């Protein structure tokens, strides 16, 4: 395989690739073709260095010390919050709580909002394309409050089936929790319409932004969602970085979640009072270096321009869908790259996704095989698992070609 690393329409991919040390790796004698960015993205040296620089020059606990390092660490940590807030169009950095990622963020809302607000018979509306991280926390909250879960079903081509929305979204609905972009089908649900419909019946809306925020320009004011979750590790940031956006008045009203240092105002033997938001939700020593480095990831993405990031993804996704269909792969999810992201689930002939992933790995190609934490999607389409290729700013058209060519290898092994 020769990866010529040309300039794509929207991004100078050759230059971008030079920033990602891991892309120099080989698998056996094959260059690494990393097509699993939906699971976690790779990190540019700017991000790796930002985290190392924090430890090497500014390391101290944030919001606790009077000395110079502590002031620097605090300023860097809060600057990262301001960057993340700006990146998603939040009106105020205080609307952003730092967390380990989407899973912690959804659980924060499920504990601190849902368990305080939900009553027996209240409903939470989900969709069948949700990631387990946007299902299981609600099941636990429903178990504890007596609330009921309902699901927006899927059409055969991987879209939300909104034909019966009127009977699913009612005054009983207290929350609609929906993914901004499906990690297994690629689908981009119509968030703006959904928030409008939900607000019309008085329900709040949580958008799972794990896939959306890294790949599409996002403005929470425009989307008008009440909560948005962010996974830093999927947008060039370190593992353990991320956050939760929430409208400020919600954060004020919510119960505490994790108790501990810094989230308090005063602590007495039998009770405690809370710090102001967002600190009320940041208990104990936080992921300081990681959020600082997420700030560097945001700088990187903003320098590329999120419109260009999206345009590059549309280009690669369109090309990949075309080539995969040519060779007879079955695609799960919409076929129009304009209404979907770059996570492409497929079956190639009768080769089980695990076997396919093992065979592709021998060619240096890293794809994901499994249920992608979306077992409801697997059941809906009657498969135990799918193969999934997903793209990000460093992927090339040539890598898509490599993927498609390697499928022939699987065919040879399995004689399908």
């Amino acid at each position, binding site marked *: 395989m020769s990866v010529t690393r040309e300039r794509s329409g929207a991004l100078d991919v050759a230059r971008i690739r030079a920033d990602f040390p891991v892309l120099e790796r080989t698998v056996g004698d094959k260059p690494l073709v990393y097509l699993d960015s939906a699971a976690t993205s790779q990190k540019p040296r700017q991000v790796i260095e930002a985290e190392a620089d924090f430890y090497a020059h500014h390391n101290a606990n944030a919001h606790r010390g009077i000395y110079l390092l502590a002031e620097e660490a605090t300023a860097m940590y809060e600057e990262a919050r301001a960057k993340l807030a700006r990146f998603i169009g939040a009106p105020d950095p205080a609307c952003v709580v730092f967390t380990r990622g989407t899973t912690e963020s959804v659980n924060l809302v499920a504990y601190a909002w849902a368990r305080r607000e939900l009553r027996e018979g209240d409903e939470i509306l989900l969709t069948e394309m949700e990631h387990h991280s946007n299902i299981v926390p609600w099941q636990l909250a429903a178990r504890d409050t007596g609330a009921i879960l309902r699901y927006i079903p899927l059409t055969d081509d991987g879209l939300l089936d909104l034909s019966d929305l009127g009977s699913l979204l009612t005054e009983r609905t207290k929350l609609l929790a929906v993914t901004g972009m499906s990690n297994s089908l690629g689908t981009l649900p119509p968030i703006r319409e959904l928030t409008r419909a939900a607000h019309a019946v008085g329900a709040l809306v949580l958008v799972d932004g794990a896939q959306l925020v890294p790949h599409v320009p996002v403005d929470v004011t425009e989307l008008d969602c009440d909560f948005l979750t962010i996974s830093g590790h999927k947008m060039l940031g370190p593992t353990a970085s991320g956050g939760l956006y929430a409208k400020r008045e919600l954060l004020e009203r919510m119960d505490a979640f994790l108790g501990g240092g810094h989230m308090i105002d005063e602590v007495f033997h039998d009770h405690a009072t809370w710090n102001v938001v967002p600190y009320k939700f940041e208990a104990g020593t936080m992921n300081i270096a990681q959020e600082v480095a997420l700030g560097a990831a945001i700088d990187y993405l903003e320098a590329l321009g999120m419109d260009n990031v999206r345009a590059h993804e549309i280009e690669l996704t369109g090309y990949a869908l075309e080539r995969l269909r040519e060779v007879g792969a079955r695609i799960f999810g919409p076929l129009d790259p304009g209404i979907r992201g770059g996570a492409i689930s497929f079956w190639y002939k009768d080769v*089980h996704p*695990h*076997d396919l992933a093992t065979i592709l790995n*021998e060619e240096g190609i890293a794809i994901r095989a499994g*249920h992608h934490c979306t*077992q409801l999607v697997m059941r809906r389409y009657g498969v135990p698992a799918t193969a999934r290729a997903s793209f990000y700013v460093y992927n090339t058209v040539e890598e898509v070609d490599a993927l498609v060519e390697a499928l022939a290898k699987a065919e040879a092994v399995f004689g399908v």
Partner: protein
Amino acid sequence: MALDDIYKEVILDHYKNPRNKREMPEATLRCSRNNPLCGDEITVFVLTEGEKVQEVAFLGQGCSISQSSASMMTEAVSGRPLEEVHRLIREFRGMMAGDVDPSEEELGDLVALRGVVKYPIRIKCAVLAWDVLQEALEGGTGEATGARPH
């Protein structure tokens, strides 16, 4: 690493033509499990008679490794005394952990799965059927704990 280390002829044969793949209503033990990582599913049926495993069958879906391992397992353990079956389970696990040099005599076709050791994550596929068999022999049904609404 070469692909034929893992995708040996005999594995592909068991995958495409699984042995003893059927419901067994007369089974005395029955256990179902899946691999949460990937969705592979195996149900194992065991017909015991006293201290002997008379017959083993399976149902399931999944990759070539999990399904061929199940198929080969049913052949290897059917008609053996319980004690031998437990030894086989240990031996197979030992091979997959890379600890034990498998004896062709004991494991037969199953030795073909030795190549999977080089693919650590696929080891879970290879041992799934064996986990289920062991749980069945210990009287388990494979029910996991979890969150159910009241």
